[in-house]
């Protein structure tokens, strides 16, 4: 399935670099889940920023992932939302935004 908006379609670097980088982060930190959502998932949309959702159990777990995402975000315009598990439940964010878990997209 073609998840990607036009931004990705026109950039092999993003496709081959960003998704594996996010996917390995998602797999490495067990109690943190990474999702992609927003216009980048809509084929043929014009994408200005890549929307990333990080769902965590404890905020103490965020330092490592924030550092890694900060490095990646210098190369790609990314808007990163950090949500606790309770907040994600309160907003029903993943379902409402049709967010996709990164590790499931790259499988």
């Amino acid at each position, binding site marked *: 399935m073609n998840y990607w908006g036009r931004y990705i379609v026109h*950039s092999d670097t993003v496709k081959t670099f960003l998704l594996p980088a996010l996917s390995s982060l998602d797999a490495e930190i067990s109690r943190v889940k990474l999702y992609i959502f927003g216009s980048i998932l809509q084929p043929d949309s014009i994408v*200005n920023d890549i929307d990333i959702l990080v769902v965590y159990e404890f905020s103490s777990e965020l330092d490592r992932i924030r550092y890694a995402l900060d490095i990646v975000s210098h190369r790609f315009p990314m808007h990163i*939302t*950090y949500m606790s598990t309770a907040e994600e439940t309160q907003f029903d964010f993943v379902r409402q935004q049709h967010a996709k878990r990164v590790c499931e997209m790259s499988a």
Partner: protein
Amino acid sequence: MTRTDNWTAGWACDKLLHHDKVIATKVRNDNLLELEANGLEYNVEIATMSVANVTAFEIGEIYTSNSIEFILNIKADAYYDRTAIYFSEQTPVGIGGVSDLYRAITGRELRTYLPEETKFILRGLRQHSKVTSVTRANNRTYQITRNNHDPVTVLALNEYDLTAEAVRQGIERFGIPSLILTSNPNCHPSTEALRAASNSGLSVLSWGELLGSLHRA
């Protein structure tokens, strides 16, 4: 010395062509491009960077000519300090991310571009009867002086779903304010976000609530 973001002009040239008003782009050097767009009377020069904490010093490295009309920062959600904002206002030169540049092109207003949210807040505060001056301490913080009352520092957070981490990061990055403004009119703060603000001794106010609070000591 070579900058680490010396790829940004080439990257932006490719990206900007996706905008329906952009006709052509041309790399002038590692951090400078030329852009031709429908609605703009002449080709404009855009300086490019990817910087998380933007200061006037950072801008000075890439602002190599006063013919540059916009500074494009690929790094989203960057911090722009007081000196960067002052440089932008006084030069004048527009500054912002890819979305900001697109809006500036559409609005044919590159040098004096400000995000709609910033324009709205500045205009509303400056028209308030109690307010004597408003200055921007950074791209999210407004320092307000008032008639017969203490000054107020407002941190504007524009998330639709305001989270605890957005509150904590906002305070950490932009400084401790007097209060937090939810500048997105449809903002839903989470229970944890309100608790995080309260733990820091801060109220979370909507736009209307902020205007009302400025009348009180």
